[in-house]
């Protein structure tokens, strides 16, 4: 037994998610990512003397939306506070934040681990404004600051110290990112920084109930990095303790080039942020009605939707596949308004459509086939007018190319419809029987498996148009 097994890790994550609003949290400047440096900046963003904040209502709505999606309790009485510290990318010398009084309390996010499904407990979700960006590498002698991002609305989603491994953290971020995208509060783009993660990691002996000294790891800009950093940190801490050392409470940064972490400051250097209520913004009250209005507009969440699909008869795996992304589920929902063959619809989505998108490097949102056309194809297959393989390999690409023509019309034009008329099929069946006397003899002696060969042969000469069910029936009849 390795010494590793003596320890367990306790992990809490703080995720900053940029809210998808048009404008900033406290002024009308664009909140869009990018843009030439310092172009989304008014006097307010730049903290010019005399400027004042005004709260963006949309940001408050989005914060509540995510709180409801995470089963949080929504605080009715809200106010902002100032977090005071000096840094060049912080225009006012303080950040306006709900750090002291979060809009969402408690709540949880479900994750799927090897041991099954469990809820990761949240401590809170609060709103705050983002800082600008210091750029150290474009000028040898100066640090440059881009204030475009300053004032962009964020929510900070804070878990309880409820995660037990790097894998769980990985699962949690994956689920959280899926969720914020699903409910359209954040684009979840970690590379552009719209989702950022800090991890609080500690270890303790198994069975111990007290938390160990924690280390905060910052700068985790991908889900992979979250996992790698935590793995490294747990290993490092165990080694420190095993070699008789003591873990120091500190803030560390992750180096993605080496998958290691390094200390950036000790606790002793921690700032006193001198929080106090932001006097420029009066407290605001949320009515039950306002919150209910937001709840009404919340889409069905992946977890609920997956259960719903399973109730419609889909397998768990298929159902979950359809719920990986909101756009996929939206498409599926549109299709099942038009057909009751849910299973077939799921097979199309998880089969040919997924392959097509993958092959063409497309997102479901860019998939141009109208749900109506897919429903028509399902119906044609169900009615035996076309077989599934012809539908997926020939008809679907044709429909994607032609755009709006109905499936039946396109299939007819392409001569893909199966022939069920027995007189024409009888001709092909007879031709095959005549062509293969030896095989026919073997079949008659009892080698019944040869029926497949005959059917295949008919398929070949009919160029796929003969309905296999009718062909099989006729063959069995004639070879009795």
């Amino acid at each position: 037994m390795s010494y590793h097994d003596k320890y367990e890790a306790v992990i809490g994550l703080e995720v900053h998610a940029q809210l998808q609003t048009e404008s900033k949290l406290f002024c009308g400047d664009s909140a869009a990512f990018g843009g030439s440096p310092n172009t989304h900046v008014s006097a307010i963003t730049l903290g010019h003397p005399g400027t004042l904040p005004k709260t963006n209502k949309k940001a408050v709505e989005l914060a509540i939306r995510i709180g409801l999606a995470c089963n949080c309790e929504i605080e009715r009485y809200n106010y902002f506070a100032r977090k005071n510290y000096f840094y060049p990318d912080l225009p006012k010398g303080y950040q306006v934040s709900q750090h002291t009084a979060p809009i969402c309390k408690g709540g949880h996010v479900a994750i799927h681990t090897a041991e099954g499904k469990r809820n990761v407990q949240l401590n809170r979700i609060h709103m705050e404004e983002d800082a600008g960006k210091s750029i150290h590498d474009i000028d040898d002698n100066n640090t440059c600051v881009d204030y475009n991002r300053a004032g962009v609305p964020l929510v900070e989603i804070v878990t309880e110290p409820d995660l037990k491994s790097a894998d769980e953290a990985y699962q949690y971020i994956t689920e959280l990112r899926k969720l914020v995208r699903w409910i359209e509060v954040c684009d979840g783009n970690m590379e552009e920084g719209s989702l950022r993660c800090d991890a609080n990691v500690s270890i303790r002996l198994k069975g111990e109930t007290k938390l160990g000294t924690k280390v905060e790891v910052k700068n985790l800009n991908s889900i992979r990095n979250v996992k790698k950093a935590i793995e490294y940190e747990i290993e490092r801490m165990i080694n420190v303790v095993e070699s008789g050392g003591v873990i120091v409470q500190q803030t560390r940064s992750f180096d993605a080039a080496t998958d290691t972490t390094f200390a950036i400051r000790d606790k002793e250097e921690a700032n006193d942020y001198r929080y106090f209520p932001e006097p420029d913004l009066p407290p605001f009250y949320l009515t039950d009605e306002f919150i209910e209005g937001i709840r009404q507009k919340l889409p069905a969440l992946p977890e609920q939707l997956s259960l719903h699909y399973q109730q419609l008869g889909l397998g768990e795996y298929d159902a979950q596949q359809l719920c990986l992304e909101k756009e996929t589920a939206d498409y599926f929902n549109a299709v099942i308004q038009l057909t009751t063959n849910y299973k077939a619809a799921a097979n199309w989505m998880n089969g040919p459509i997924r392959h097509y998108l993958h092959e063409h490097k497309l997102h479901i949102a860019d998939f141009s086939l109208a749900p109506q056309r897919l429903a028509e194809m399902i119906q044609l297959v169900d009615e035996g007018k076309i077989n599934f393989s012809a539908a997926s390999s020939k008809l679907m690409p044709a429909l994607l190319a032609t755009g709006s023509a109905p499936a039946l019309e396109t299939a007819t034009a392409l001569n893909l419809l199966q022939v069920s008329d027995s007189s024409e099929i009888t001709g092909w069946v007879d031709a095959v029987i005549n062509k293969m006397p030896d095989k026919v003899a073997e079949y008659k002696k009892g080698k019944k498996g040869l029926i497949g060969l005959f059917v295949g042969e008919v398929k070949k000469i009919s160029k796929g148009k003969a309905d296999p069910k009718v062909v099989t029936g006729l063959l069995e009849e004639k070879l009795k």
Partner: protein
Amino acid sequence: MFTFRGIQQYFQLLASNQATCEEAVQYFLHKITDNTHLNAFLEIYAEEALERARQLDTKRKAGVPVGKLHGVVVGIKDVICYKGHKVSAASKILEGFTSIYNATAVERLLAEDAIIIGRQNCDEFAMGSSNENSAFGNVLNAKDNSRVPGGSSGGSAVSVQAGLCMVSLGSDTGGSVRQPADFCGIIGLKPTYGRVSRYGLIAYASSFDQIGIFASSVEDAATVLEVIAGQDDYDSTSSHKPVMPYLQQNTAPAKKIAYFKEALSHPGLDPEIKAQTESFLQKLTTEGYDVQPIDFEYLDYIVSTYYILTTAEASSNLSRFDGVKYGHRSAKNAPTLADFYKNNRSEGFGKEVKRRILLGTFVLSAGYFDAYFTKAQQVRKLLLDKTTAIFKDFDAIISPTVPTPAFKIGEKSNDPIEMFLADIYTVFANLVGIPAISLPLFTHSNGMNFGIQVMTSHFDEENLLHLSKDFMRLRISE
């Protein structure tokens, strides 16, 4: 020759072609030039003001409808932003800074045809009671040049006192309009918190600051207030309450007046001021007012409460002046980021501003926050409750504006505590957010004017101004 005897009379002169806006501006420019020793203005917009005056004259003569402040010549305190013009809060730290936008109050003045003639000297970042804290020198009291004009809006008060403009906009966080008005013998009005937008007013203490008006008559103050007051989308703390035509109704004021017993028995109160105030209260009784003494057991707490809360907010509000984005940047070598900030801010801020930033930083610090900031907030709440209770029974509260008359330059500059304590009567209105006015009713045996302060309940500027008009009538009839 042009003379100014009130805005309404000026409008009549204009209407009857006996004066032009240009003549008015010329007149004030001459007066300013003759009084540069007072150091009331930091910058004069002479050409610009003349040009605007000429445009207004042309417009008026062409029959274009005129604005509510057509041709009114206004000075603005150097803490109010005027697009394309320098604003420095009388501090070195904003040297070279030009505002890129208009304060809402300025926007509204301009929309009603006012002419802004220049920016006025004040205590640095509006912190002070004597105008001795300006980075650009003292302002002198026009009546006695050896005395202070009061502060922090000293330049704005002296401008009206010496007739350098018709009215001034100042700012009042704890008496910075009323106290210099008292020292200079003019009207100083601080509206209800939230009545005038703070957008574009350089913040000292956000939950106390309010733009105020200096005028030579109650009517002029009311006229300006009607223009600059009202809700503003850029200031979330501005009120949606409608703006009243404050003096147009000829209604008699509501006459139940209270005064704080403790205020008049305060040991720091100048005996002459006490006597005159008491005799005025007496006179009110004979004039049909119902004047009642009431207990106000919190008087000794209000100055400390005020300084804890305002310095706390100031320490944060002034963090943006760091030399990164604008303003003073030290020429000294800065090996670290902390050195960079220290150099810029140590060189840029004056002594009083540093004192208040330090005090405010201290009261917000971990370990002291509850003992100071939280406690002071509790006192503030108590004061508000008390105020609400008082105004259930009374229409107004009267007190002296300042416990002493205008003092000599340098007399108190080494005793900040004494200077702070002199704010005892004015800070109350800012702590609870009510409107207050200083009325120049008296003259001291030392020759200086002083006044009384009248306060009414939240957003009751209407009664405040009606009372003021009546009290001024009593002075005139003396």
